């Protein structure tokens, strides 16, 4: 698996704790699933660790479609992380 460039987008308190609305990252080989991505991001700094400390509270969308944490990242261009939705 080669390195891949993706856009990460954060919303609500995930955005506030990480301190960024979005960023472009290159995923190293070995980051195959959403679960892998969350673990890798947690190690990027205190804000990330704080935002993602309860991974099951994090919802994920790949290319603007909801995915479970077991989903693979193949074909992902835009990955969004956010808390459970509270619209409506």
């Amino acid at each position: 698996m080669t390195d891949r460039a993706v856009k990460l987008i954060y919303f609500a308190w995930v955005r506030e704790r990480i301190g960024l609305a979005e960023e472009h990252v290159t995923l190293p080989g070995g980051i195959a699933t959403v679960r892998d991505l969350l673990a890798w991001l947690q190690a990027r700094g205190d804000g990330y660790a704080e935002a993602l400390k309860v991974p099951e509270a994090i919802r994920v969308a790949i290319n603007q479609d909801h995915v479970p944490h077991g989903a693979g990242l193949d074909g992902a261009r835009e990955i969004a992380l956010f808390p459970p939705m509270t619209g409506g």
Partner: protein
Amino acid sequence: MQPIVRIQREDFDLAAETGRLREGSRDIGAIVTFSGLCRDEAGTLAALEIEHYPGMAEAEIGRIAEEAASRWPLLGLAALHRYGRILPGENIVLVIAASSHRQAAFEAASFLMDYLKTRAPFWKKQHLRDGSASGWVEARETDEEAAGRW
């Protein structure tokens, strides 16, 4: 029947949106509307701030609307959601379902709201009147249960 989906900062008008749907068909016998409003939380709330995921918000509500249209014989369907700063008493969301008979209209509107609550990428932050506290609204477990019944 093409569902109408709009995500906007501005307010919307119940009568205008319902009127637009009525014009589409003379066979409509039932129209159910749902308006979601900003409550003042016993006078403590100054405003809600609604954040959304542009692009995905439209796409996700569109998918939910298509699902509703495939499950019930609808003659009209609209889902409008606001974002930005919203004051107590103002509109947040409007869903309209039109059908020949009332059961389909009631069920489709209720289904659309249940799914919109749990799947559409919007988040509410509360700004309190006394400025002492504010925070992100937490998702309600009852909303997940409501969506689970369909």
